[in-house]
């Protein structure tokens, strides 16, 4: 990846000393919430408050200006009224700090006066080489360094955790969505490394973060929520994404399927285009996977973070329940994946090694009384045959014959073969726990066949993006 320097962005996630401008002791204030985040023991850097009104805030020392602080400061979080931000930036410049997150609103999003104010701040920042995230944002959460500028109390807005297996990072234009996703992913069991709310994007934008996250070892999948791009910024995102996607998957949810551009067009082509169709083409062309909603995004992201991309579109569905097998293969077929039956040779081997009442085909049904050894046989022979690029495994745990050994069998075959596996396990409390264990072993697990099929499709889609012509595409889809 060659995106230019990402050093100026790294400090937003790894600052060793942070100053909170506009820190406050009044309950439920933005200033107090942010200070609270940083005084938690998990954050190991130094924290300073800046506010002429106080000598200390929530037990940390408070200074009238940054220049009164002796220690060097890496990052300044600005939570003061918009009109005084230019003065704050004079102070930031004088202190020689190179990174700032402006939480405050009241800038270009409010009209011409706010725009003027924003431009003034941007000019000051440019002159002194200060990078800005925001304004009008909630900033960043880094689950590893515990930098956390979300001014939302944790009992209301949960924070996600990193996973030892794989993590995603998400960049959101909307602060409210960033908060909701933080809260949601804290319960989802999806490993998250970083959440970034960009707000007005007066400086740091989608491109900067795409470059940074592409090189970030703790991010396996990059996710975006966007409503649109500034003038020509769609083009630069397209160009950056084209370089990133062969190395790391990028997913996007884009809203605003707007009609505005249509009205302005005077040619036939222009009237048919609309901005969204062009955006759609740009994503496809640059290898960005566009999904319709967050549920799809997290289903796809989990699989892409935990598994290798598929080398082809041939899926084998293995199940211990007939209904689950049929429903999942229906969904796989609708997703445009190939579900070839085992060859005659492979069928013969299965007939010899599996009980006669197992249904050999695709799906292959090892039936309700199966223990994990039947799965073991299916995987061993299918992998040896080279007839499949991917496995979707139905694991129904309501039957006592299937012990937890099944998770070892799946994980071992996945690891040894390097082929992508996706598990579908429907059920209640026991099943959910088993799914968590399966995921700790690195194999993404879903509650329905449809979700698992969607995940499998994402693995094939990314395989096509990553491997291009080398991707073994066996069926020509009617659909794009």
């Amino acid at each position, binding site marked *: 990846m060659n995106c230019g320097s990402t050093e100026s962005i790294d400090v937003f996630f790894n600052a060793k000393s942070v100053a909170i401008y506009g820190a406050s002791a009044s309950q439920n204030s933005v200033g107090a919430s942010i200070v609270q985040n940083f005084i938690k023991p998990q954050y190991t850097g130094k924290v300073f408050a800046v506010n002429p009104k106080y000598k200390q805030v929530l037990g940390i020392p408070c200074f009238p200006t940054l220049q009164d602080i002796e220690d060097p400061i890496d990052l300044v979080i600005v939570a003061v009224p918009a009109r005084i931000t230019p003065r704050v930036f004079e102070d930031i410049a004088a202190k020689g700090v190179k990174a700032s997150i402006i939480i405050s609103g009241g800038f270009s999003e409010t009209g011409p006066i706010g725009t003027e104010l924003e431009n003034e701040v941007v000019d000051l920042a440019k002159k002194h080489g200060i990078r800005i995230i925001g304004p009008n944002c909630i900033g960043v959460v880094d689950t590893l360094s515990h930098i956390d500028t979300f001014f939302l109390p944790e009992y209301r807005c949960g924070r996600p955790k990193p996973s030892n297996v794989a993590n995603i990072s998400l960049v959101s234009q909307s602060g409210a969505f960033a908060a909701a996703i933080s809260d949601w992913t804290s319960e989802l069991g999806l490993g998250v490394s970083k959440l970034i709310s960009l707000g007005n994007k007066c400086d740091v934008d989608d491109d900067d973060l795409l470059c940074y996250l592409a090189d970030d070892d703790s991010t396996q999948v990059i996710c975006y929520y966007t409503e649109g791009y500034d003038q*020509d910024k769609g083009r630069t995102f397209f160009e950056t994404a084209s370089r990133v996607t062969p190395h790391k998957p990028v997913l996007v949810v884009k809203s605003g399927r707007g009609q505005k551009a249509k009205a302005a067009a005077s040619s036939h082509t222009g009237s048919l285009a609309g*901005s969204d169709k062009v955006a759609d083409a740009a994503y496809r062309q640059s290898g960005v996977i566009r999904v319709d909603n967050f549920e799809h995004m997290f289903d796809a992201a989990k699989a892409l973070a935990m598994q290798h991309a598929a080398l082809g579109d041939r899926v084998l569905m293995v199940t211990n329940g007939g209904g689950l097998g049929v429903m999942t293969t229906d969904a796989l077929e609708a997703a445009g994946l190939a579900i070839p039956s085992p060859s005659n040779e492979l069928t013969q081997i299965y007939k010899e090694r599996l009980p006669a009442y197992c249904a050999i085909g695709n799906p292959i049904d090892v039936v309700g009384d199966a223990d994990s050894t039947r799965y073991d046989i299916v995987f061993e022979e299918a992998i040896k045959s080279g007839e499949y690029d991917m496995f979707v495994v139905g694991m129904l745990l309501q039957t006592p014959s299937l012990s937890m050994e099944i998770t070892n069998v799946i994980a071992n075959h996945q690891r040894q073969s390097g082929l992508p596996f996706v598990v579908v396990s429907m059920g209640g409390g026991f099943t959910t726990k088993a799914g968590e264990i399966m995921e700790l072993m690195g194999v993404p697990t879903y509650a329905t066949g449809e979700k698992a099929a969607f995940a499998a499709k994402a693995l094939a889609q990314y395989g096509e993006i990553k491997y291009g012509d080398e991707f073994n595409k066996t069926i020509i889809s009617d659909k794009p």
Partner: protein
Amino acid sequence: MKEAKKIFKTALEEGRTFVLENEAKDIMKAYGIPIPAYDTAVTADEAVQKSKAIGYPVVLKILSKDVLHKSDAGGVKINLRNDDEVRKAFTEIMTNAKNYGKEKGIEVDLSRGVFISDFADMGTEIIVGVTKDPQFGHALMAGLGGIFVEVLKDVSFRLIPFTENDAREMLKELKAYKILEGIRGEPARDIDSLIGVMLSVSKMIAENPEITELDCNPTFVYEKGKGTLVVDARILIGESKASH
């Protein structure tokens, strides 16, 4: 490329943001895009003479900086099969254009006369176009003409520039792609030559970013081995600015 720049300069000097049909065809030709034989004429006699040289049947169209929508002004006569029909069409076009001007309260410039073009054989109708998106810049659109584009909006897009592979995928994305491959005993269409046109248009836009919109509509693609023709081309331009 120089040819195109000269044409755009003239257009902007005349206060036009569109180029005339002969100019559009000159640009197309410079980029190796296949178009029917064409010429221009300022008198009826000249029109007859040039039509003969091209070979009947021909099409005559008004050529004026004051007329963008030629059909609305009664400025298009198609399938003209002999000298008399051309002579008659020429006079009618001039009269219609004058009347169109009166209705609009403007004096229509008739000094450029008419555009004459070979009347192309009907092929499978395709629309190839370019739009300039404020966020993403130039994108090319392709689709089958007629109901496919008008009713079903069956079109696909790629940002410019794109690869041959992109162009091929773009066509495969169309619901009507099977028609190009040949259905119900119809022979397959010349997909490779259509892709050639798409790539040439892409190159044209990359080198002339001042083009804001372009329609090659209709474009006829013939059966395999028999090529593609861009029958009508409309080019709109904005201020010259290299965007990518």
